[in-house]
């Protein structure tokens, strides 16, 4: 029996990406190895850690728990697609910086995806809703409190992106 490669067209961060993949290629390996989008992290590879979370047709899913062929014709948003434009940060990303919601950063792409999905559906989430939304994502650095703080900050009335880099001036952090 032959295990024939399959042609897929997956829209990633707004761009249709036609590729030929082996059926066993997971969606996260497709994003990282075929498209070079290494923002999405591979953690446990069996659906425990949430580091590989992406938005699939707008809803958060684990990209290690599906094959790229299953996403054929669908739309994927990765952490690279969260900011309004290149060199900018989204409000959520900016709030993560402000509240020190990351240390090593491994879980951060998945956390950001989970938090973006939350505020998309619930613009003013309660603390319980925030904790529920990140319940499928493991973080071993922060103890989660700063992440909860970041979502509260990002969703507080009138919150604007603060850092110079976030506004797109191109000034790098030292």
């Amino acid at each position: 029996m032959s295990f024939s490669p399959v042609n897929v067209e997956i829209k990633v961060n707004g761009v249709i990406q036609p590729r030929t993949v082996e059926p066993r290629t997971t969606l996260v390996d497709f994003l990282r190895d075929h498209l070079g989008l290494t923002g999405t992290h591979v953690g446990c590879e069996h659906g425990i850690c949430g580091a590989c979370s992406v938005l699939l047709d707008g809803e958060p899913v684990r990209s290690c728990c599906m094959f790229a062929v299953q996403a054929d014709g669908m739309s994927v948003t990765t952490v690279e697609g969260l900011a309004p434009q290149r060199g900018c940060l989204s409000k959520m990303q900016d709030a993560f910086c402000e509240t020190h919601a990351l240390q090593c950063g491994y879980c951060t792409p998945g956390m950001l995806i989970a938090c973006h999905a939350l505020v998309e559906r619930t613009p003013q989430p309660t603390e319980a809703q925030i904790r529920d939304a990140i319940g499928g994502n493991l973080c071993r650095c922060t103890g989660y409190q700063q992440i909860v703080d970041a979502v509260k900050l990002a969703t507080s009335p009138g919150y604007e992106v603060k850092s110079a880099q976030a506004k797109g001036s191109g000034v790098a952090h030292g």
Partner: protein
Amino acid sequence: MKAAPFEYIRAESLEHVLERLSQHGMDAKAIAGGQSLVPMMAMRLARPTVLLDIYRLPELRQVNIEPDRVRMGATTRQRAIEYEIDLHKALPLVRDAVRWVGHIQTRNRGTVGGSLVHADPSAELPLAATVLNATLRLRSQADGERQIPAQEFFLGPMFTATAETECLVEIEWPVWQGAVATAFEETAMRHGDFAMASAACQLQLDEDGICRRAAFGVGGVDGTPRAFPELARQLVGQRIDESVAREIAQIALQQTEPGSDLHADADYRRHLGVVMLTRVLLKAAQSHHSAPALQH
């Protein structure tokens, strides 16, 4: 951890699925949301050589709410249930159960039928199906459709009555007539992890709070979800207070044979089962006083 190679077939129709299952037998596996199957393939606990993708078949995700039953296509998304208010009214126990299933990311892909055929002993939807004794409809090319009650469907951990050429197509949930009180509880290391013990119950109470109909069960304790229809009948005519609930829970758990693992040995698991079952019986019985507001 990468899956072994396989041939991928996106099913075009249910007939197509049944034909391929009949052709490939054990070598083929139907995949819907894949939230259990993909990790098992990654760990090479499952090595199908043909993967039949049934997730997009519209005929497998119809939900029909009727006065005395809900007919639910096998690939109904778990997450969809969270937003179906009409479904919550018809099947409050399923509403209660689905909140404990995995995480938002897994519920977005995971399906009701997928959880049932995977048959993890600690899974919530198999427990709800067992407690309500839902009817499962399986279809194969050779034998057409057959029905099996949930209480006979689960045979052991990850082991069901599904034949290798069969596909689960529909779950028929019974809807009790009149108001019901339900509760679902579980204990796990974290919310969303595999339950060490879980319990579910559905009660019908008269205006005096006397039990008129009962169904309850425990998950995560035995190799399959367990319901106790004979014990449930003993509750009819009783007012369920703390001592009644605890006594019936203790008798129920004496009928189980828990296993031991890293998180809970057999005695602790049985103890947790008693606590969870007592809790759901009391919670449902007491909701009579605060009814009819929906628990949100």
